[in-house]
């Protein structure tokens, strides 16, 4: 298909503002009379609040002080349910839980004041591990510490063991991971009788914040307004937590009668906000003599922290992805999200899938070894094909060629030759540098799971102005991933215009349509399709009314818009998501068409390990994926490269150190993310099989790279060292211990 701007690397829409320093992030804004706000937090993991004392030589009368008593509506941050308080009133359930808010115009004095608030807590027994939570050492949430559990049943797992030639068992763990967007979280709020509550801030999901503030203030929809400022990275970390900061800033603004700005510093951001859920997975896998999967029995648990937040949905995605892109007749998955007295874990790019995919892809290399075939041969014999059924009962209707992706990734990385060469070289005991090459094959579903998109019922509005400029009005946010640019490309393509003629309206709940949250690899595929439909709708209005003839120029289009508006008034169209009728999902049985489409991928990592120091270097990384039509090659490759870098951090460096539910290395100095000298060349390749329901054939790709990177590296380290890697991060400290076992 001949395209005009789709498939072209047009420059980032807001790029010029960003490279000149003119892009305005929340901390760059200042309002007259504005106060600064800070949060006083719980020193204890669990307990009863006995007293709050305002001590020190602080002019307390100058301060605005807010506690739970100042909340006009419900004391909660409404999300899936309403269990998380905005400010702890009687009990605290995790370290750093917010209890008191302070505002003052002098931020230096404010910091002194924060330290002078004494909170006395009578401690209650707390639990800090998945094991203690499951053992119900204490019941800290609901009746049984379980936020949510799922059962997936395909075929008859128990009937398969008897006929199996091999049964392979394994347990795997993944740690918490900090999103570490470089712009810390922040909000500004203003509250007045006339205007209601308005907040501006760094966020992914304006309508999530909007809903939370309605419940907190007990105000109707139209009295709350949420505006997204330029957002310096999110990666899931600004999906649910911004509602908390918006709530705090708005409470201080209400009480003080002034605008209030809350900006977290890095330490507060790391210690108090959400992280990727730690996980534990157990696999028991049955195979035939020739290495065909007969049964997969998977038990998957994630640590949700102290409140439910998004844990049920994270668990859901992790569960559905746990059995990977393989055809296995009998699959049983039991999964649960459990409560511990840590700050709630939350959304992070991949959303449960990186945890369960790590376990599976590391496990399958061990399975291959047990069966006595190569890891790629095991995958080849079991890859899912068109017409076969995934674990959750979804028949794959897409054209899928996992084997083709794998062969391409192997050719690009020199996998087979290196695998052989490294095995030979590593067997020389004199060599201190051992090398390995490993891979992972995986899939990632795009959009909300199951009936999620149907419930969301996203909307997009588009308006052609009299001068021919076309406005896109959607709640979908730009946080670096390219929303503005690809929306402009999709609209420009539909309208046969250039991207410059398309204007993306800043997400502001007072003006834009609710296109759903900017999460779940759904923006390009689901919302992008609505943008495309809206563009075609506008065009139809112009051509049906004979304002515009085929073969028009940009000038013709502008003239036609002017004439239309003069004759009929505003030229505006609304499009609402319609769930495809052939996609069925059963929420109770947890089976059916989990996602409209999947991205498919094979990643290959090459590493070297110095067995004296246990230092791991990733020397090469090849990422091959099929993501439907690529809308903007530079942006798409940038998404994959950045995701692989985060995945390398997840695998090797990013270690959250916990002490009684509190992150104790909450600094960039000792929580280490990859720098420019740590990463290999990340080589990205796309296969493009247009997806009929995506805009111009596009599928989602944003989360995909987090799934396969860590297991590819773990498998490479296993080849290099002989260490049976079972958990990430594989820091030098943990690897050194394991190496002592192997090379002693």
């Amino acid at each position, binding site marked *: 298909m001949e395209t005009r701007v789709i498939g072209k690397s047009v420059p980032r829409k807001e790029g010029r503002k960003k490279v000149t320093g003119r892009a305005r992030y929340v901390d760059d804004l200042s309002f007259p009379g504005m106060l600064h706000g800070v949060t006083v937090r719980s020193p204890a993991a669990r307990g009863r609040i006995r007293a709050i004392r305002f001590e020190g030589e602080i002019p307390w009368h100058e301060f605005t002080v807010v506690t739970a008593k100042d909340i006009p509506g419900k004391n909660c941050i409404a999300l899936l349910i309403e269990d998380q308080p905005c400010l702890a009133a009687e009990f605290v359930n995790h370290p750093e839980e917010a209890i008191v808010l302070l505002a003052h115009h002098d931020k230096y004095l404010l910091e002194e004041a924060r330290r002078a608030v004494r909170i006395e807590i009578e401690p209650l027994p707390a639990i800090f591990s998945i094991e203690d939570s499951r053992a119900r050492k204490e019941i800290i949430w609901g009746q049984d510490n379980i936020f949510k559990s799922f059962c997936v049943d395909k075929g008859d797992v128990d009937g398969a063991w008897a006929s199996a030639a091999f049964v392979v068992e394994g347990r795997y763990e993944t740690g918490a991971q900090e999103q570490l967007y470089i712009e810390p979280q922040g909000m500004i709020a203003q509250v007045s009788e006339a205007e209601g509550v308005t907040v501006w801030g760094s966020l992914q999901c304006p309508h999530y914040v909007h809903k939370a503030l309605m419940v907190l203030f007990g105000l109707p929809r139209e009295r709350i307004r949420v505006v997204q400022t330029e957002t310096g990275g999110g990666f899931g970390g600004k999906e649910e937590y911004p509602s908390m900061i918006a709530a705090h800033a708005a409470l201080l603004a209400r009480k003080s009668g002034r605008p209030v700005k809350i900006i977290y510093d890095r330490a507060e951001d790391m210690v108090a906000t959400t992280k990727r859920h730690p996980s534990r997975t157990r696999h028991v896998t049955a195979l035939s003599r020739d290495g065909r999967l007969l049964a997969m029995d998977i038990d998957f648990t994630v640590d949700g922290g102290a409140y439910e937040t998004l844990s049920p949905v994270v668990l859901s995605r992790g569960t559905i992805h746990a059995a990977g892109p393989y055809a296995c007749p009998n699959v049983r998955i039991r999964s649960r999200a459990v409560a511990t007295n840590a700050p709630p874990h939350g959304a992070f790019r991949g959303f449960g899938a990186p945890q369960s995919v790590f376990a599976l892809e590391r496990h399958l290399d061990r399975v291959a070894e047990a069966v006595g075939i190569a890891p790629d041969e095991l995958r080849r014999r079991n890859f899912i094909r068109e017409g076969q059924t995934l674990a959750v009962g979804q028949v794959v209707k897409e054209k899928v060629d996992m084997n083709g992706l794998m062969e391409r990734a192997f050719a690009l990385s020199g996998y087979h030759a290196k695998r052989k060469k490294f095995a030979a070289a590593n067997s020389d005991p004199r060599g201190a540098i051992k090398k390995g090459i490993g891979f992972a094959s995986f899939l990632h579903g795009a959009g909300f799971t199951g009936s999620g998109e149907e419930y969301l019922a996203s909307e997009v509005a588009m308006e052609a102005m009299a001068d021919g400029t076309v406005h896109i009005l959607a709640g979908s946010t730009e946080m670096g991933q390219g929303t503005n640019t690809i929306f402009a490309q999709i609209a420009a393509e539909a309208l046969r215009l250039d991207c410059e003629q398309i204007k993306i309206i800043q997400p502001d709940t007072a003006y834009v349509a609710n296109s759903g949250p900017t999460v779940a690899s759904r923006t390009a595929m689901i919302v992008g399709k609505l943008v495309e439909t809206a563009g075609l709708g506008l065009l139809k209005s112009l051509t049906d009314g004979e304002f515009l003839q085929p073969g028009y120029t940009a000038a013709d289009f502008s003239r036609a818009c002017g004439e239309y508006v003069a004759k009929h008034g505003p030229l505006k169209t609304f499009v609402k998501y319609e769930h495809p009728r052939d996609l069925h999902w059963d929420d109770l049985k947890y089976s059916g068409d989990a996602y409209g489409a999947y991205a498919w991928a094979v990643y290959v990592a090459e590493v070297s390990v110095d067995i004296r120091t246990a230092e791991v270097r990733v020397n090469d990384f090849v990422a091959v994926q099929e993501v439907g039509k690529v809308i903007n090659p530079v942006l798409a490759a940038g998404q994959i490269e950045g995701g692989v*870098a985060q995945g390398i951090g997840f695998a090797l460096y990013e270690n959250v150190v916990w002490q009684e539910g509190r992150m104790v290395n909450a600094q960039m100095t000792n929580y280490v993310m990859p720098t420019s000298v740590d990463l290999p060349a990340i080589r990205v390749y796309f296969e493009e099989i247009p997806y009929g329901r995506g805009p111009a054939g596009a599928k989602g790709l944003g989360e995909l790279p987090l799934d396969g990177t860590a297991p590819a590296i773990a498998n490479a380290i296993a080849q290099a060292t002989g260490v049976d890697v079972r958990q990430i991060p594989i820091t030098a400290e943990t690897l050194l211990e394991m190496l002592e076992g192997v090379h002693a």
Partner: protein
Amino acid sequence: MPERARKIRVSCVVNGGAASFEAYPMARLLDVLREELKLTGTKEGCGEGECGACSIEMDGALVNSCLVPALQAQGTKIRTIEGLAIGGSLHAVQQAFLTHGGAQCGICTPGMILAAANLLARYPQPDDAQIREGLSGNLCRCTGYMKIFESVVAAVRRAETRA
């Protein structure tokens, strides 16, 4: 209330123009630039000199402005991201970041671009290792650095074709 230091007057040259401000001697230069001089292109990412989002040039050297006390700015020449483009025309590094996907969320971008411009001033033809080393004090969470390296290489090429 505890005794506080008194503010001092500091004079320096910022982006080619004379600048003068009052600040506590140990105030962070980052805050002075952002709050007194309204140069909000310089960003704070960590406040402890790890991330480089607050990078500026001071007498030609790249520094983390979150670690520089205001008094140290006295008599220096400072360049921030706002001083890089001349008139309406982008610096070669800015243009390359725009074309080659060097900026995603944009929060590390001002510091990263200054680091790249500073690198090219020292090594007009940097090799891969020099580029990686030169940018290693500036963290980016979005790009995985690949498109940033490409942008720097493109800026070098552009400079070559002009020469």
